[in-house]
């Protein structure tokens, strides 16, 4: 089945839906028209640029450029994960813990998939590496951000309980155990829920995309199952690394709770 290519008139027609939305917003005085149109324009420009960059990248198949592009994606993800936390670690730790965890988790899982299951030739072919990394990274970022957010917010809220245990002589790992468990549960909830609902409630975007571009649904489903496993692995590994590193950072070698190592609460 051939790919039905879209021309720009097709996109313009679809954009009419947005204009209808904007018109409704003005009519109902929702104040959303401006934001909607700006967001839509940003999306179109950002994706078009991304398309051009990817086309260039795919044309060159350079391990260095691919690696550089992947690194930039991870650094942006680190900033986004940091921005989503209410009480983040002070100083470079606030950026470093989440970013390092994502770098390790996403890189390991992506390279694992490229070298053992998908196996393009060469293995770093950006046509496979970048989309795989993007999907794994997007979900890992959510898990890491949720995990760190829950860990620091819960530790601050449960200060009395944690310090009561420390004061009784419990080691810091025991004293923080219920906080770490809560953080990891929260981090993994979205991917667990999404695996449970996939196929019944939601048809994932990647699978749908493959089907639209002419791939046999059974093959597309196999790809989607692989991706879900990779995402779950990356999210679990990334969240675990980030939460344990942050838990070590908000305590010290003398088993004290060090909330002074959190940045002041963000003004909202």
């Amino acid at each position, binding site marked *: 089945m051939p790919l039905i290519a879209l021309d720009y008139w097709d996109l313009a027609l679809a954009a009419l839906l947005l204009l209808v939305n904007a018109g409704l917003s003005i009519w109902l005085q929702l104040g959303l028209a401006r934001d909607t149109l700006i967001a839509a324009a940003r999306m179109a420009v950002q994706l078009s640029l991304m398309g051009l960059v990817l086309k260039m990248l795919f044309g060159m198949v350079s391990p260095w450029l691919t690696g550089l592009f992947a690194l930039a994606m991870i650094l942006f993800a680190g900033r986004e994960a940091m921005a989503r936390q209410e009480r983040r670690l002070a100083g470079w730790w606030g950026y470093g813990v989440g970013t390092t965890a994502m770098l390790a988790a996403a890189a390991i899982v992506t390279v694992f998939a490229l070298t053992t299951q998908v196996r393009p030739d060469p293995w770093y072919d950006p046509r496979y590496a970048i989309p795989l990394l993007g999907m794994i990274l997007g979900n890992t970022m959510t898990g890491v951000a949720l995990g760190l957010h829950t860990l620091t917010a819960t530790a601050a809220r*449960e*200060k*009395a*309980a*944690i*310090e*009561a*245990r*420390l*004061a*009784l*002589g*419990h*080691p810091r790992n025991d004293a923080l155990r*219920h906080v770490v468990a809560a953080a990891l549960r929260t981090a993994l909830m979205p991917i667990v829920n999404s695996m449970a609902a996939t196929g019944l409630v939601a048809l994932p975007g990647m699978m749908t995309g493959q089907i639209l571009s002419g791939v046999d649904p059974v093959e597309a489903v196999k790809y989607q199952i692989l991706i879900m496993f990779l995402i779950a692995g990356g999210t679990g590994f990334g969240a675990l690394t980030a939460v344990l590193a942050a838990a070590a950072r908000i305590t*010290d070698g*003398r*088993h*004290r*709770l060090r909330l002074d190592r959190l940045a002041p609460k963000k003004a909202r």
Partner: protein
Amino acid sequence: MTSDGEALLSVRGLVRAGIDIPDFELAPGEALAVVGPSGSGKSLFLRALADLDPNEGDIRLRGDARGAMSAPDWRRRVTFVAGESGWWAERVRDHFEDWEAAEPLAKRLGLPEEAGGWTISRLSTGERQRLALVRALVQEPDLLLLDEPTSGLDTETETAAEEILAERLSVGAAILFSTHDEAQAGRLANRCLRFAKDGAAEITSCR
């Protein structure tokens, strides 16, 4: 009370931001009351001895340097009970290694035997405070650091708590406790560590 061999606790050169503490020693069976206005550093001082906040100094228990033992080991022997008690599990008994061993003490402080099965959320502030004290007492530490242990308790329970503390002293433990009640300071302790508003403290007689 000059050599480390005799002193139960010796504190030399304690440095912790916000407070200025003179060197002192505590003998086995001795209680020291920590008094002074709110916010003068009484809690900071007790937390520092328990090593819950960064601080420096030559702190020894029966001659053993604090720095030479792990923090959990230190805190099993030098146990701090905060003014605001903390709870991490659903039921009272989950917070005790052996609730049955704690029952007699809890009973003396006016809590019934079945209190072990109560959920934390139904406890009053006073019940939590008493149970937190019991939780530390059953571990039988050499030194208790109590932050206003009886504030908010009725007279009867306060008397029971003071009796229990006096028993601990009689078997050779030592107690540092903060209080706003000068009469209580005098009942349990001969010496007071008196804080001024600026966090400077000096040892005085309680009477």
